[in-house]
């Protein structure tokens, strides 16, 4: 039988709620849901910038969610973010590789070629916008388009480093974990990315 030195000790011990395994699984699921809900749109936009295709970006994000939940749900919540982005970046790279192989094959095949930009012109793009903020929105859209174009022109590792560090606000250690490289490499990739982007966007953004 358990003995307690003082009455408050006993009360403290008995007041601690006993958690069943089912409750802890539920807590973890809630925590995972919150994490994914917080990160999903940002991850989608990062994938979309890299892949320039909405459906491909959605597929890659969905795959990353599934892999994180299946393989790393038991890891501490603090590790989820770098793990998630590592899975995401691997997915993006795999898809880009498959596209490159498909592109080489398609070049040998007869018939109509794919749109090099990967997306057809949307007729709605040419419809005039009557909203009062239209000029402001248009300028922002153009600036974002320019930024995306410059980011896509960067080498993959530099783009990853810039987006993780700058867009996601990860520190060097987290970025290194997400990219699977040393902290020194992250610093180099990031610095080169910023230098190239400044050269590219300098005229547009000044």
């Amino acid at each position, binding site marked *: 039988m358990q003995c307690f030195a003082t009455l408050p000790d006993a009360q403290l011990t008995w007041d601690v709620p006993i958690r069943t395994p089912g409750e802890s*699984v539920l807590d973890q*699921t809630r925590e*995972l*849901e919150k994490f*994914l*809900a917080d990160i*999903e*749109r*940002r991850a*989608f*936009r990062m994938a979309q910038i890299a892949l320039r295709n*909405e459906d491909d970006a*959605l597929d890659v*994000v*969905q795959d990353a*969610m*599934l892999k*994180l*939940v*299946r393989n790393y*749900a038991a890891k501490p919540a603090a590790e989820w973010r770098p793990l998630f982005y590592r899975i995401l970046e691997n997915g993006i790279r795999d898809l880009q590789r498959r596209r490159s192989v498909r592109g080489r094959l398609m070049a040998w095949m007869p018939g109509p070629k794919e749109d090099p930009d990967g997306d057809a012109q949307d007729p709605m793009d040419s419809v005039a916008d009557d909203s009062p903020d239209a000029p402001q929105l248009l300028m*922002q859209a153009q*600036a*974002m388009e320019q*930024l995306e174009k410059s980011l896509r022109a960067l080498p993959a590792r530099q783009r990853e480093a810039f987006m993780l560090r*700058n*867009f996601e606000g990860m520190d060097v250690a987290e970025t290194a974990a997400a990219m699977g490289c040393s902290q020194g490499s992250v610093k180099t990739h990031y610095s080169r990315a*910023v230098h190239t*982007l*400044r050269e590219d*966007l*300098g005229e547009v*953004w*000044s």
Partner: protein
Amino acid sequence: MNENSPTTLEQRSRDLFDESVGNVNMRVRSRLNQARHAALEAAVRPRARFFDMPYAAPAAGVCAAALLAVVVWVGVPHGEKPMIASESQTSFEDLDIVAAAEESSGDTLEMLQDDADFYAWAAEKNANPDGNDVG
């Protein structure tokens, strides 16, 4: 301060990115929501067993067919000549007969309906052999 200093570039690009995240359309938001729930369901659900996998059924079918082939092959007694074409042809003939019977099964049913009166009469006659014919 230089307009194009990294700080300005970083800040401006981050702001633009954040804004673009806020402008993600409803279709994408809905798809992301579905994807999240699907992933979380997978976490609660135990991993699929071998026979739940989509490719398991065809693979099991192929294995069963291969096993059956081995059993039939090994089951043939030594010294017994294998089935030759002329013998196997009878099987095909049997199949033809069965197929023909199935095709004409509609006619057979019609014949049975035509003779229904006859069978009724025969049954009555059987039950009452001494009875006089009616009609």
